[in-house]
């Protein structure tokens, strides 16, 4: 038995040794390897490099790779993997890089070194051949290139020239970023959003992405404009044997970073000439116009007219000066804040307008000449200074008071207008209406004193009167009711007292009850029948049982009287007393 159990244990141990991976061996089997996805590449293209460290699980030190100096290096990420095959565990960590060669040549990459558990592990080396790519300019420039141009290679200081960048492509791209050739000698201003269209270059059709900038020089000289750089991801397609171009979609392609350069350019910046420069020149360069408008041209003295001057054109509108209106005697001038509006046009460059307004208030009647306003600027097209000038304007101030209509304005006095034609009423002036001169203004109502007794009396008196009247009526009703109750009690007492005497006849009892009913209910009946008794008591809210008892009592007494027994002594006295008491009880 024991021997069989030991055999089973040994068998299980042997199976465990065979099937279970030997983890302890993993840590000792390290290796480092460099993998390049291609061995030959052109300048401007990039190559993917992976450094694989095998035998480690989880985290690994970053390898140090020799021979990367001739490249622009970008890390693309790290991944780790574990595989179990035939009971053996293979684990590795991969470090990804994108290498972009700076120039042509044959370069040796590696070895990559990783230090693990105190030992340094090295990879082998790889050789990468870099050849010159398609030219940056010229007729043959490949399926993807960047082109730059200037609308004019000459520009004046503070003037502008258009810097046009075009991306020609016949492959899908994404993640574009642009580095402009910035300099202290100029500034760029983007004129519009990029536009995309179909274009032909050297007989081949491209998708062209175009973006335009205004290049504004700030200092004179001859400058080289360095190439603009564009980083993008190229989706390499067409290399898979896919049917119908399905795998040409960027979704199924492998993006590869790439940097494009435009061609270098030259720009000559000319200084603004001293000759002919206006004394108040503000640095305005471009082509500008000026216009002035006065509204209304005729006002009454003391009222205001508005002078609007607009300087508009193409150029550095930020340097349009704030014009000053010369002072005039008898004219008050209130300047408004100028309104500057900059406009960007992809074809014409930067332009805009500056609007200046003044409120003019003539102090007295007369004609006031508003002199021409000038603005000086340098016109790069002409290469000389020019001045834009408004027309002189005349503001006519009328007398302050309203004037009668002129004879010429009489209806039908020489007018050539069609009979019956109407025209809008022209507002010639603005003024206030005259004062009220009647003495009655002194007898007008004074402001109301709401805290005075009069106001309080007017507001409260009606309500108080109502309350008093209502209270009085209630009291009177209550008094009447109380009086009736006293009478009723007295009548009942009297009836009960009368009927309690002994030896009363039926006639006497009938009379006592009739007197009670008369007094109790304010009646004056000479005789009382059982029907009348029923009616009277029912009308006064006496219960049906009591009513029947009273009617029966009256009926019995009637019969006794009318059958000749009215003079006999009757024993119904207690019944009369009980009936009266029940009536009183029901009446409460």
């Amino acid at each position, binding site marked *: 038995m024991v021997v069989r159990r030991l055999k089973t244990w040994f068998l299980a141990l042997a199976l465990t040794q065979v099937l279970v991976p030997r983890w302890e061996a993993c840590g000792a089997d390290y290796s480092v390897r460099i993998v390049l996805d291609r061995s030959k590449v052109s300048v401007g293209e990039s190559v993917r490099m992976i450094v694989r460290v095998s035998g480690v699980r989880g985290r690994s030190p970053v390898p140090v790779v020799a021979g990367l100096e001739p490249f622009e290096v970008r890390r693309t990420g790290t991944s780790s993997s574990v595989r179990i095959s035939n009971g053996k565990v293979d684990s590795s960590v991969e470090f990804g890089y994108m290498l972009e060669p700076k120039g042509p040549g044959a370069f040796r990459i590696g070895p990559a070194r990783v230090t693990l558990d105190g030992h340094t592990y090295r990879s082998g080396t790889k050789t990468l051949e870099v050849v010159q790519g398609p030219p940056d300019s010229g007729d043959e420039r490949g399926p993807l290139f960047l082109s730059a141009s200037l609308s004019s290679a000459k520009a004046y200081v503070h003037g502008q020239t258009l810097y046009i960048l075009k991306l020609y492509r016949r492959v899908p791209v994404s993640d574009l970023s642009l580095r402009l050739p910035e300099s202290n000698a100029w500034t760029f201003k983007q004129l519009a959003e990029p536009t995309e269209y179909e274009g032909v270059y050297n007989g081949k059709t491209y998708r062209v992405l175009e973006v335009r900038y205004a290049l504004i020089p700030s200092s004179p000289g001859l400058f080289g404009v360095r190439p603009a750089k564009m980083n993008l991801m190229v989706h390499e397609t067409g290399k898979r044997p896919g049917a119908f171009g399905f795998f040409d979609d960027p979704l199924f392609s492998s993006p590869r970073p790439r940097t494009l350069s435009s061609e270098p350019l030259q720009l000559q910046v000319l200084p603004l000439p001293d000759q002919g420069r206006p004394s108040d020149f503000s640095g305005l360069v471009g082509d500008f116009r000026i216009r002035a408008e006065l509204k209304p041209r005729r006002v009454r003295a*003391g009222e*205001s007219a508005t002078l609007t001057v607009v300087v508009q054109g193409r150029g550095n509108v930020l340097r349009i000066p704030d014009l000053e209106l010369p002072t005039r005697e008898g004219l008050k001038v209130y300047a408004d804040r100028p309104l500057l509006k900059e406009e960007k046009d992809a074809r014409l460059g930067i332009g805009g307008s500056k609007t200046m307004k003044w409120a003019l208030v003539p102090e007295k009647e007369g004609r006031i000449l508003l002199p021409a306003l000038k603005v000086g600027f340098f016109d790069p097209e002409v290469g000389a200074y020019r001045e834009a000038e408004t027309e002189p304007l005349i503001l006519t101030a009328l007398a302050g008071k309203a004037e009668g209509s002129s004879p010429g304005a009489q209806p039908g006095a020489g007018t050539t207008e069609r009979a019956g034609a109407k025209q809008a009423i022209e507002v010639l002036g*603005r*003024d*206030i*209406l*005259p*004062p*009220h*001169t009647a*003495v009655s*203004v*002194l*007898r*007008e*109502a*004074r*402001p*109301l004193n*709401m805290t005075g007794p009069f*106001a309080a009396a*007017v*507001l409260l008196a*009606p*309500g108080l*009167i*109502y309350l008093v*009247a*209502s209270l009085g*009526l209630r009291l009177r009703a209550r008094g009447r009711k109380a009086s009736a109750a006293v009478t009723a009690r007295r009548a009942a007492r009297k009836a009960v007292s009368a009927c309690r005497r002994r030896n009363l006849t039926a006639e006497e009892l009938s009379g006592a009850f009739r007197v009670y009913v008369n007094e109790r209910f304010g009646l004056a009946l000479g005789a009382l029948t059982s029907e009348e008794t029923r009616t009277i008591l029912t009308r006064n809210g006496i219960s049906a049982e009591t009513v029947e008892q009273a009617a029966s009592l009256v009926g019995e007494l009637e019969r006794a009287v009318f059958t000749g027994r009215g003079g006999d002594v009757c024993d119904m006295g207690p019944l009369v007393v009980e009936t009266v008491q029940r009536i009183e009880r029901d009446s409460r």
Partner: protein
Amino acid sequence: MRLSVPVILIALLTILRPLAGAGEGTAEERLFEANRAYRDGRFQDAMQGYESLASEGRAGGHVFYNLGNAYFRLGRLGKAILNYERARLLIPRDADLDFNLGQARARVVDMAPESGTFVDSAFFWVDSLSLREAFLGFAVLNVIFWGLLLIRLSVRSEWSYYAVLLVLVFWLLAGISFGLKWYRVSWDHRAVVLEREVPVRAGPDKGDTVLFNLHEGTVVVRERNEGSWSLISLGDQRRGWLPTRSVEGIKGGY
């Protein structure tokens, strides 16, 4: 010689009557003089004449209107609007006043912020009533309402029931309108900027930050005073401090 009591009374009345008449005549003469000064273009004299009438409490709405006109002619836009607003409380539907106030407001530099509450919209007619008119309207309806109730104490007919209901509705509307008007007039904290331009600061001190500038004729709400400074606000949440002398309250005029 003995003088009888009737003789003495007649003598006293004979002496005192011209004096009493002189007081009334003086006010009329001053009004006449102020009107003539205005007509002749002596607006300063006209202003002083109207001011004296107003300061004596003899001013109805049209005296304030005339005073506003005189200030307008003198180029004192703030004072003109101030007196027009005072007149508007007394003669709110006067067409001349509306026109002149509109002319004056058109010359104010600052754009007036829009203001208005639900109550303003619901009781839109309150602004076109003076306090006296609102009071009289409510007083009449008050008498009718309580009178009908009084009648119903003795005549409990159907027509009196519906009449009470109908009058109750108008009585409530008139009561609320009158209350609203009274509140607005009694707690009217509006003031008018009198200086050509005045900086509004973050605090009651000349060293405090200038928040914005106000110009002559702008109507503000004065919330409180601290020393020689007033805290004012506009309808659009803007508020700040300015010297008290720069503004004058509309309600202070009567």
